[in-house]
Structure formats: structure tokens, C-alpha cells
């Protein structure tokens, strides 16, 4: 999915320039962790200091190192989804351009349109073929059915509960506040 501009590539549809800075930030976050200047955001979307591909893996479990990637992916797709479906701030043409260029995950957004799946964290967690007994991931269990008051972080993406009724916010659902504290340790 080339995001490289050359003289032969078509121009992006209108409206792309407004959202481009945010998308760039997401891209940068995916690569390495840098402190974001909050004032550059017009959308008001808060991206905590999340490190992804280039960050050190010390102090983390093997699977835990992958969680920020899933979180960012969710957040990026969420941004595009909200722009188009909720706030209706971009055109259909631009939306489809974004999906095609890989700025958002069309399959994940398709799930968000379904009843009961509005806050799904990632596609791995609803895939029954990935589990021993053909069930979904533990993060799909609503909080009140979970008992014990135990915190669960699912092994796929570190999600702490993404069922629609569990009260988790959309950006906070994938990998909780622990990621925000990684800023202080580095």
C-alpha cells in the first residue's frame, strides 16, 4: 500500500489535507515513540505516548510488546470511522480513499457497524478459530459477568474489556493506562 507520492500518483480527494497531520502522527507513533505536542490536534483526540516498532522490549513480556501496535491500529481506524460515520466530517470518496490506502482497517470498521460489536478491540479477539474451544477472547466478556473483580488483559492485544456494555471507552479499551505510563519510564 504505497503511501509514497510521485508524479504519477493521483491526488487525494478534498478534505485529506485537514486530517493528514493526525494520520501522520499515527504513522509516526507506529514506528517509534515521540512525545506529541497536544496543541497540534484540532480533532481533540488524545494519543498517549505509545511506542511501537522501535521501542525497547525491556521489562515487557513477549506478547506485551505487540500490544501497542494493536492499540494504535484500533485508534487509527476509530478516528476514520468516527469522522465518516459519526461526525460525517469527510466525504464518502475520501473515506474510501483512506480505506484503500491503508489508513484504516475496513474489516474492523465493518465489525463496529454491527450490533454488540461497537467497541471490538481487534479482529483477533473475535476469531473463534484462534482459541482452543472455539470461543472468543476473554476481553469480549462483559465486566459484570466476569466476577472476582479481576483485571484481565487479553493476550492478543492487551484489551481490558471491549464488549459494548462493559463501560470501557473506545480509545481506552485496547491496552489500558499502563501504556500511558511508559512515558515516565523512558
Amino acid at each position, binding site marked *: 500500500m504505497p503511501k509514497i507520492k510521485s508524479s504519477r500518483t493521483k491526488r487525494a480527494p478534498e478534505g485529506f489535507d485537514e486530517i493528514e497531520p493526525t494520520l501522520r502522527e499515527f504513522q509516526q507513533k507506529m514506528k517509534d515513540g515521540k512525545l506529541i505536542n497536544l496543541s497540534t490536534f484540532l480533532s481533540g483526540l488524545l494519543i498517549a505516548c505509545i511506542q511501537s516498532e522501535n521501542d525497547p522490549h525491556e521489562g515487557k513480556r513477549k506478547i506485551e510488546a505487540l500490544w501497542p501496535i494493536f492499540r494504535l491500529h484500533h485508534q487509527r481506524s476509530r478516528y476514520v470511522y468516527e469522522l465518516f460515520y459519526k461526525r460525517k466530517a469527510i466525504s464518502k470518496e475520501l473515506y474510501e480513499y483512506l480505506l484503500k490506502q491503508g489508513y484504516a482497517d475496513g474489516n474492523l470498521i465493518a465489525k463496529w457497524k454491527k450490533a454488540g460489536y461497537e467497541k471490538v478491540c481487534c479482529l483477533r479477539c473475535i476469531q473463534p478459530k484462534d482459541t*482452543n474451544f472455539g470461543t472468543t477472547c476473554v476481553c469480549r466478556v462483559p465486566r459484570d459477568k466476569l466476577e472476582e473483580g479481576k*483485571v484481565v488483559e487479553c493476550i492478543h492485544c492487551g484489551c481490558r474489556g471491549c464488549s459494548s456494555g462493559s463501560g470501557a471507552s473506545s480509545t481506552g479499551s485496547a491496552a489500558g493506562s499502563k501504556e500511558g505510563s511508559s512515558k515516565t519510564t523512558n
Partner: protein
Amino acid sequence: MAQIKADPNKVSWEESEFPILCETCLGDNPYLRMTKQSQAKECKVCTRPFTVFRWCPGVGMRFKKTEICQTCSKVKNVCQTCLLDLEYGLPVQVRDTALGLEDNAPRSDVNKEFFAQNMDAHFQNNEDGLGSGGFGKAESAGREMLKKLQRTDPYYKRNRQHICSFFVKGNCTRGAECPYRHEMPQEGELKHQNIKDRYYGTNDPVARKILSGPRAGGAGRQMTAPEDKTVTSLFITGVSEAVTEPDLKGFFYVFGEIKSIVVVHKSKCAFVNFTTRAGAELAFEKSGGGVNLQGTPMRVSWARSRPVGARSEQKGEAAPSPVAVMDALQAGPPPPPGSASSFTYPSQDPTYQGSTSKHR
């Protein structure tokens, strides 16, 4: 599943349909989901590949899996995970010393594998294990002793999570979501257990403890007056169904005023609580360690001030503890299945997706 092998020395891998397990390892929930993986691990005893079964024995427990192969478990008649006897739930060493069984299985290298292979063929042909041995006279006395040593209810504490080693060092970053136990490890000798020792029945610290403990040898119980002066109770064992509270009262009242008597026929014991320490001491002295009522000989010893067994909820207090413990034991059966709030599993909830409630 008889297999015809062209070469009798050829090593064939074990295939099994269901594991050989004890009830405690399976857990309290009658509904279980178990995974089966052929040749997933090597047996801890004979190092041959075998079918590994893995399941969750209850809420908050670690996932248990079979550790030894079926052949090894049949040879010794033990559970595939906990390596305790299937009939009594006792360590191999305890059972073998009680029944006088000798173990002459080879333990080294090729010898061991050859033996295991032979036993494998033996079991395939005539499906009998240790359980169907002859019943000699010495054995029935041993069996009596084993029956006394048995636990009365399942000990699910062994299914708990392992201790978080990061927590022990002081830095568990997982915190609340850490699945391992955040407790400090305890107990000296019992910590050094070896699976091979436990299986073959040599040098097993748990077995040593049981054999020298309260119900087996007898030398373990408190026969001298305890230092804690507030203990005014005597602990009586061997209490059969025929012996009742008035019987005990009639025997012990001469020594001093009795505060209360608690009899638990289920565990064949009784507590006689005196109001004064002097009364208890006199009673102990005069009874000489034993008392015979209704034709049953019973043993008398001092009650201990710490909690009795895994059943009690209280921490160790001084004199009130035996009475309090007995109250907890006599709390009666669990509430009837109609009660709406005591659900251990969602399947017990009658409003849960149309499934019917479980009757216990």
C-alpha cells in the same frame, strides 16, 4: 487398542482417549473442557512421548495437565497429574509401606524404557494394574491404616496457581492482572519435592510427614501438656458412632467442670473443653492417653491451639479455637439449590441462556 508389531522391540508411541485422574485434580465443576494433544510432552518418569490432556479445575485455578504417561500411572495406580494413589489419595511411599509393596522397577536409562515398554504391552493385553493384586492378611490391616490416613474431603489448594516469582523478588509489574499468587512461599522441608522420588516412593517428605503424623504412628500428637496455658481442651480420636456426648460427659465430668463437649462423628473425633486448665490436666493424666467407652477404644491427647486441617476458616487463637472450629464444621450442609445468590458458575444461574440450574 491392541497393536500388532512386527518388531517386538520397536518403540510405539502411546495413544489414549481419556486420562487417568483423581477427583481432586479434576476439580469441583462437573462440567469440564479438556484439550487433548497426542505426543505433546514426554512422560516425567519414563521420558516417552504421550498424550497430554489439559483442563481448568475450577475458577481461579491453574490449568492442570497430565504429567506422566498412562503406562507409568497404571504401574503404580496413581493419578496422572498429582501422582497420588487413585484409591486413597495418598503418596506412593505411604501406600507402599502400609501395604508392604515392593518396587523393583528399573530406574536408569534404557532399562527404564525397556521396562516401560514391556508394561505397556502387558496393559494392552490384559488391562489390569496394581489394583487387582491379591488381598493378603497383611494387606487388609494396611488398608485399614490407609483408610484412616485418607483425607475426608478434596484438597483443592493443590490446584491453585503457582507463586509469582517476581512478587517474591519484590517487583511484579503485572500487579492486579498477574495470574500467579502473590504470597510468600513457606514451609521448609516440603518445598523440596522431586517427581521421581514421589513416583517411586523413596525419600518423599510428604510421605514422611504423614507416616509420622497424628493418625499413623501416634507419636506425633500432643502427649505432654502444651506450653500455652490457655488450652483447656482435650482432643479425642477414634470416636465411633456409638459414642455420644453424654457418654463422654459422664466419663470426664469427675475431673472438672466441663465447659462444652463437641463431637464430630464424621471425622471420628471429639473435643472436651474444660473450664479450668487444672481440670483438663487431671483428666488427661487419669485417662492415660486412652479411654474406652461403648466398647470402642479411643485415644486422648491435648487439643492444639492452631486451626485443625484445611476446613477451618479461623486463624490460630488460643482456647476458643477448638470450639470455634467445631462450630464451623457443624455449620451444616450448604444452602439448598434454590438459593439465588450462591453461584459459582454461570451455568448454575437458571436465567442463563435457558440452561437449567444444577442440583447438588
